[in-house]
């Protein structure tokens, strides 16, 4: 495949019902009103020279290279800032214009180093291209400009350099940072020829820059350039694929030299990201070829033995033999599997098929159990389907944005940029979070209402908001009457109107002032299109499912569903959480969220798979571990998950794993869980396989193989071979055939195929005969379940209470530069921003305990104890402390408990009662983990063991 470049129309394309006819260089063309002359010309194939314009940014009109002549107008207007008009006659090439453009180019080149042949952007430089396009042959002012040459190259950022000597001060980087990313880290310092792009700090690394790459993407020269390009040279081929980090699912172009990635470039055609990216997807891909990758299968009899490298065949035979032995000894239900939200839909589907058809039980679960399982339950109960209601671009139509229990600027940064753009345009913002997240007050954005509730009181707050809506006559009666079950609504309305749900009563439990709750409710109900965006701060509670239903109630009561700008929108953590759930990874349901007890559905699967399937739900992850501790669950196949780090109550998890007789881990690295494994199947990164991911907006996007699997097999091939060793006949030559089977068995996917994905770029399910091109917005005319169902959501305080012994509440979260358990991002330069998890604590709590910033502190809960360094933070409220869980050595989940959501067993990560005190040592668990960790990872290498 050759290197492809996306066309640049110079200014953003417009959509309008009104078409405008004009003539460009004697050719008539029709374009939507609002289109610039530059874009109109580009659409018909005429590239007007430009430097400061690019179609991801609004026109700026500074470079004066895109001048044109327009009949009847004086002068030579800039085509980028001139909108088309009916009857306009434009000439893009005349002698007068050519002279002007050459003159402009002369000025630029007079202060630009002429080192094109050795420049890292050679062949990929718009200045070079434009010099050619305007026919520059001479520079009358000489070529010895010294304006920028005394400024040193800033190479502080680990991924890109800033070489001011090559800067033409077009402001594209500054505008990208403002308009696309919304960080405002860059500015132009000085005037005239003294103008310089600056970060406002000593260098890029020590500035507000978040390394999203938007400035690098926008730069037309080598001023901002990837270090990988400087080191390796220009890419020679490219492949369109999808990012494997968070649930935004950005489209990327993997630009390659042979089988080496040179850079990952965000795709403008990617409908989730529209050309934007974050530091992880754009730059943190080096883990894929990191030296820690395990590329040979390994086995061992006991976890205290060294690993022994074996052939794939031996690994499959051994693993299959062990699983069959265990089932023979302990029963058919004694084994199970965990699918991965980092793997593709096809791989996930295969694993659950292996469990149901090969293991003969339904003991399959996925990591969504510990993050968004309450979303599935809550939205299916109220709306009829287990997914968010909108596409990402819907936020551009929102007038009020309610963010609850989510930190989009860190965890979903590319979507956060869309959201911030809308907020800068004037949409109102309500943030409900115990921790003062960036969005509460950031560049040109300030929340209209920030409800700093106590952890564990989400449901009380959502009921109080609903109370105001109902008791102050703010219900959208027409919507409720037409779209919802009236009997359920009336019961719910009576419930929320009760005194205990009034803001004044809720103030006592939540800590949020009643007048703030009332004001936020009024704004949400009356401010126009109101949308809810939420994350794990909603789901990871003992009332996670209740809260999801509470938000659905609020959206229905205010009529905020079924159109652009509104909706209930989960922000999914990992790249394919939505897909893993869609594919039937939960133990109680097949793909498409159909219960295993449904005879018609089960018979359909049985018919295609030629097996008898169990009609009973299997074990969920926590149940599997409980059963393992009890000694009845003995074998687990884990694809791409690290439950020993990510799941709560680590010591309980590891007790369960130690009790098993065969744990199979399939992963890129020897992760924490692999310390307790007996078989290791080396995994393949997203660059090494074909498949699809489904993002948080239900968008199915292709993942395309850019290089051969390092271990010889893609993950789907590994599962296939394991299934074969177990005696299962699964016949696929390519993941597209697995998708065909998914489509044949899943009503919401019947229209999905690789051919259609190639044609459309991506598809939002449902995609079937009723929606052949997919469904951007759900529940437009009716809810999937028919009438929307209001659910009564009584607030029940969690049993996890503060006590004299544990007087603080710990809550956990994520940071921008690291991803989940960190196995990927910690094998990149991202560690420069976050090399350890710290405990954020309010100054009041710190002072009471004699804790200073940077002190090592012990954090104790009823589950365990770890030590972290303290960071005194104004983000925290008194009584609440916070940490991230990205580093295994931190053991953040040693502290969290086994309390979980009532409906789904999703762990209550967000509320743990703890004590914090100064210490001078790591905890016993941390010391033991470090001592035993290395022992459990020893590999006895044999040069000829595996091919």
């Amino acid at each position, binding site marked *: 495949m050759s290197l492809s470049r996306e066309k640049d129309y110079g200014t953003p394309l417009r959509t309008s019902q009104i078409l405008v006819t004009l003539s460009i260089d004697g050719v008539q063309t029709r374009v939507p009103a609002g289109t610039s002359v530059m874009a109109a010309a580009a659409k018909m194939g005429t590239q007007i020279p430009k430097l400061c314009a690019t179609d991801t940014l609004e026109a700026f009109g500074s470079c004066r290279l895109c001048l044109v002549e327009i009949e009847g107008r004086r002068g030579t207007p800039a085509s980028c800032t001139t909108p088309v008009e009916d009857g306009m006659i434009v000439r893009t090439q005349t002698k007068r214009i050519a002279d002007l453009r050459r003159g402009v180019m002369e000025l630029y080149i007079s202060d630009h180093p002429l080192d094109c042949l050795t420049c890292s952007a050679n062949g990929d430089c718009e200045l070079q291209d434009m010099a050619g396009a305007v026919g520059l042959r001479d520079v009358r002012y000489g070529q010895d400009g010294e304006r920028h040459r005394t400024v040193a190259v800033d190479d502080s950022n680990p991924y890109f350099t800033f070489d001011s000597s090559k800067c033409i001060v077009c402001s594209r980087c500054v505008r990208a940072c403002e308009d696309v990313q919304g960080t405002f880290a860059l500015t132009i310092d000085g005037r005239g020829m003294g103008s310089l792009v600056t970060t406002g700090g000593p260098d890029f690394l020590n500035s507000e820059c978040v390394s999203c790459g938007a400035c690098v993407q926008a730069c037309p020269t080598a001023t901002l350039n990837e270090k990988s390009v400087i080191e390796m040279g220009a890419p020679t081929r490219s492949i369109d694929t999808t990012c494997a980090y968070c649930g935004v699912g950005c489209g990327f172009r993997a630009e390659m030299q042979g089988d080496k990635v040179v850079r990952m470039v965000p795709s403008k055609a990617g409908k989730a990201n529209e050309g934007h990216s974050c530091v992880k997807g754009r730059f943190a891909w080096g883990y894929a070829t990191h030296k820690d990758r395990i590329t040979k299968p390994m086995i061992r009899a006991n976890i205290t033995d060294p690993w022994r490298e074996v052939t794939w065949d031996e690994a499959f035979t051994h693993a299959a033999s062990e699983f069959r032995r265990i089932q023979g000894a302990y029963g058919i239900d004694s084994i199970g599997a965990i699918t991965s939200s980092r793997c593709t839909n096809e791989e996930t589907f295969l694993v659950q098929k292996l469990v149901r058809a090969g293991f003969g039980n339904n003991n399959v679960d996925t990591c969504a159990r510990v993050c968004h399982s309450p979303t599935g339950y809550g939205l299916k109960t109220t709306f009829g389907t287990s997914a968010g209601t909108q596409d990402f671009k819907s936020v551009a139509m929102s007038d009020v944005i309610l963010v609850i229990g989510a930190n989009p600027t860190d965890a979903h940064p590319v979507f956060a940029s869309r959201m911030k753009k809308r907020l800068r345009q004037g949409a109102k913002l309500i943030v409900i979070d115990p921790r003062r997240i960036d969005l509460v007050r950031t560049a040109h954005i300030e929340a209209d209402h920030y409800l700093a509730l106590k952890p564990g009181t989400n449901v009380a707050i959502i009921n109080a908001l609903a109370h105001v809506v109902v008791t102050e006559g703010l219900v959208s009666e027409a919507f409720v009457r037409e779209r919802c079950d009236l009997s359920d609504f009336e019961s719910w309305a009576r419930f929320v109107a009760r005194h205990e749900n009034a803001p004044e009563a809720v103030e006592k439990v939540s800590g949020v002032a009643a007048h703030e709750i009332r004001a936020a409710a009024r704004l949400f109900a009356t401010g126009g299109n109101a949308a809810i965006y939420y994350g794990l701060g909603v789901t990871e509670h003992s009332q996670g499912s209740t809260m999801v239903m509470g938000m659905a109630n609020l959206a229905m009561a205010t009529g905020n569903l079924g159109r652009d700008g509104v909706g209930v929108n989960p922000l999914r953590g990992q790249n394919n959480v939505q897909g893993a759930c869609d594919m039937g990874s939960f133990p109680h349901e097949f793909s498409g969220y159909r219960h295993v*007890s*449904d005879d018609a559905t089960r018979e359909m699967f049985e018919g295609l798979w030629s097996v008898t399937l169990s009609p009973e739900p299997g074990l969920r992850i926590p149940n599997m571990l409980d059963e393992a501790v009890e000694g*009845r669950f003995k074998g687990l196949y884990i694809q791409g998950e690290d439950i020993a780090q990510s799941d709560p109550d680590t010591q309980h998890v590891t007790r369960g794993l130690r009790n098993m007789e065969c744990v199979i881990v399939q992963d890129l690295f020897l992760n924490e869980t692999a310390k307790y494994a007996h078989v290791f199947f080396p995994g393949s990164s997203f660059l090494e396989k074909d498949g699809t991911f489904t993002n948080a907006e239900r968008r199915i996007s292709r993942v395309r193989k850019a290089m051969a699997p390092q271990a010889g097999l893609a993950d789907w091939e590994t599962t296939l071979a394991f299934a074969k060793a177990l005696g299962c006949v699964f016949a696929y030559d390519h993941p597209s055939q697995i998708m065909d089977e998914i489509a044949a068995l899943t009503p919401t996917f019947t229209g999905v195929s690789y051919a259609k994905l190639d044609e459309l770029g991506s598809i939002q399910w449902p995609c079937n005969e009723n929606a052949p091109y997919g469904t951007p917005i759900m529940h437009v005319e009716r809810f999937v379940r028919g009438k929307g169902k209001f659910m009564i959501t*009584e607030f*029940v305080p969690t049993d996890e209470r503060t006590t004299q012994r544990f007087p603080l509440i710990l809550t956990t979260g994520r940071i921008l530069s690291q991803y989940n358990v960190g196995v990927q991002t910690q094998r990149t330069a991202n560690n420069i921003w976050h090399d350890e998890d710290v405990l954020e604590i309010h100054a009041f709590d710190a002072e009471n305990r004699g804790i200073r910033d940077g002190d090592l502190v012990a954090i104790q809960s009823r589950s365990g104890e770890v030590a972290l360094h303290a960071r005194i933070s104004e983000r925290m409220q008194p009584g609440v402390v916070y940490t991230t869980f990205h580093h295994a050595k931190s053991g953040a989940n040693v502290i969290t408990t086994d309390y979980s959501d009532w*409906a789904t067993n999703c762990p209550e990560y967000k509320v743990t009662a703890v004590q914090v005190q100064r210490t001078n040592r790591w905890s016993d668990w941390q010391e033991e983990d470090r001592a035993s960790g290395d022992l459990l990872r020893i590999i006895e290498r044999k040069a000829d063991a595996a091919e």
Partner: protein
Amino acid sequence: MSAHKLVRMANQIAIFFRTQPEEAAAAAVADHIKSFWSPVMRREIYAHLGAGGEGLEPLARAGLEVLKACDAGAYDGVTK
């Protein structure tokens, strides 16, 4: 699984459905446990129920009685 954990889970479910009318609430508890608990978990909670059901909230107990009858084939009610 430990009876203590199963009792806690059953009680949590009952607490959610307690706002519904009594008969519907018991059926809802039964339906939820039938839909999401594996047979081995159900057998264990039945055993605990048979041994007196210590710690079970009345509604959890009522729901489990409904489900136990259903699992024994003697119930033709709301559960699947």
